């Protein structure tokens, strides 16, 4: 119609400098952090940042609340640990094996769960993750209560010794940053737009001809795979894979991190993981009852910052602007 009129208004999506600057700042912070904190603590934090970010891909950007992500986290941790200890492959292959296991698990659990919505979806993911927990409890290769431990981290690509703390630190930091970039790309892609549409209004998305189940399954598997990467890194870091990683409490913890930080924002899971891991670390030595303090914090956060810490800050900024 009046294309002239339309032309004057279409602004091409401008390449915003904010994401690039944010990632640059993140790299800078990661370079400095080991000077102030124990590298092991920072690496643990990074594993959970990645875990929460992968989880948020599903909850924040697709609107699916999974209560079974521990299966992917812990499952990948077991496979990576097993690969290092028994198969004695180099760490990059051990990690890939862990991620592959998480993807397969994600396909199975996802294919069953996405048929349902809302609370039923959450319950099916929980039920299937619990089944996996009992499998891990019984399977011989996990060593039951003892878990898999006592293995060397090996040499990355056969060259770089990951038993050197700082080598390990740069490796984990690099993988985490690259994964966050990947998640950011997925979220801000044509595919990500469809995920958003599904989150905002599923029937409407169907009525536009999208087979939403496929998109949901794709998002579920991506989230599972990245969660597996986080679990694999954690197994590599602590040289330890245990039942705690596949237990439902782990699924609860990542939900907590994401909600406290703010769902549907990229920085939210980073902040949420920081708050939770930081508090756990502090409380562990303080003698206070950890679960109660965490529960209380969660309640305060939910009541005070309904959008999560980052969500509230963004909201405030937006209102300032206009």
């Amino acid at each position, binding site marked *: *119609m*009046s*294309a002239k*009129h*339309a*032309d004057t*208004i*279409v*602004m*091409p*999506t401008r*390449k915003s400098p904010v994401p690039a600057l944010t990632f640059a700042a993140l790299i800078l912070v990661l370079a400095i952090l080991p000077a102030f904190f124990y590298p092991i603590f920072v690496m643990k934090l990074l594993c959970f940042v990645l875990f929460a970010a992968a989880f948020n891909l599903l909850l924040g950007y697709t609107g699916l609340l999974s209560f079974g992500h521990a299966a992917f986290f812990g499952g990948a941790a077991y496979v990576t640990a097993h690969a290092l200890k028994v198969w004695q492959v180099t760490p990059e292959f051990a990690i890939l094996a862990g991620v592959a296991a998480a993807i397969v698990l994600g396909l199975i659990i996802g294919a069953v769960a996405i048929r349902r919505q809302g609370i039923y979806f959450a319950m099916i993911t929980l039920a299937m993750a619990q089944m996996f927990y009992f499998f891990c409890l019984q399977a011989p290769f996990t060593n039951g209560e003892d878990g898999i431990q006592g293995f060397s981290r090996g040499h990355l690509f056969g060259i770089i010794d990951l038993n050197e703390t700082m080598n390990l630190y740069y490796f984990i930091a690099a993988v985490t940053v690259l994964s966050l970039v990947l998640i950011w*790309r*997925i979220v*801000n*892609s*044509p*595919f*990500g*737009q*469809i995920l*958003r*549409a599904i*989150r*905002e*209004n599923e*029937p*409407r*998305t*169907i*009525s*536009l*001809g*999208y*087979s*939403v189940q496929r998109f949901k399954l*794709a998002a579920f598997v*991506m989230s599972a795979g990245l969660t597996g990467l986080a679990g694999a890194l954690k197994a590599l870091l602590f040289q330890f894979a245990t039942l705690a990683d596949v237990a439902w409490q782990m699924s609860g913890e990542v939900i907590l991190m994401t909600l406290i930080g703010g769902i549907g924002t990229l920085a939210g899971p980073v902040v949420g993981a920081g708050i939770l891991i930081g508090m756990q670390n502090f409380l562990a030595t303080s003698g206070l009852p950890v679960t109660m303090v965490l529960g209380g914090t969660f309640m305060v956060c939910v009541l005070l910052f309904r959008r999560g810490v980052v969500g509230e800050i963004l909201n405030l900024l937006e209102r300032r602007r206009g």
Partner: protein
Amino acid sequence: MTNNPAAAPADAGAPRAVLSARGLTKRFGPFTAVNNVDLDVCHGRIHALIGPNGAGKSTVFNLLTKFLKPTEGRIVLDGTDITAMDPASVARMGMVRSFQISATFGDMTLLDNVRVALQRPNNMSRQFWRSLISLDRLNRQAMELLDRVGLADMAQLRANNLSYGRKRALEIATTLALEPRVLLLDEPLAGMGQEDVEHMAKLIKTVSRDCALVMVEHNLKVVGDIGDDITVLQRGEILARGDYATVSADPRVREAYMGSEDDSH
């Protein structure tokens, strides 16, 4: 579109139905919401579905677009039996619906709302590795669609911030993006101001030249102005059908509407 030599209908005579339903019935437990409804929708015509609240109009929409499975009956679209199909496939065949309760992607901009509809036909919905900038080539088309419904200057607003009437307009722009062959609009004018109603009715009339259009509408003045075929539903059954003059003269229709509706909704 109709260059199929074997089945090309003569321009004169009865228009061929693009979408037809036979014996459509839907029961929710013991309750029959739609009972034995036949419907024929023709290219280039507006078929208005009217009736009092709870008559089953939206349920008929849900059945036609496969959002609900009919308990009984058959639905044929363009010669294909679609009774057993899923709603997304039916949409890909060119039958697109809007919803009674305004359905927009609230947290997305108007431009993005329309682009979501354009992405699928342009094969731009699966690329998770590409930047959003790649979608910019849909902008011109999206803006033209927004312009058609008078929303071009709000393209960068979030749909949540629109008034109800404007959300309806956005929904129509999103729907038109798919260039549907069959278009089903569930109360497209509800919540619009008088001026917008006129504009939108005109737009619907224009659009109907290139597709078969079914519309549920309570505004009987508009139905009288632009409706070609009218079907009146009551308690899930067809009470009357025909053109507006025939239907509005029917004493049973008058009775069904007494007190419950007025012309200027």
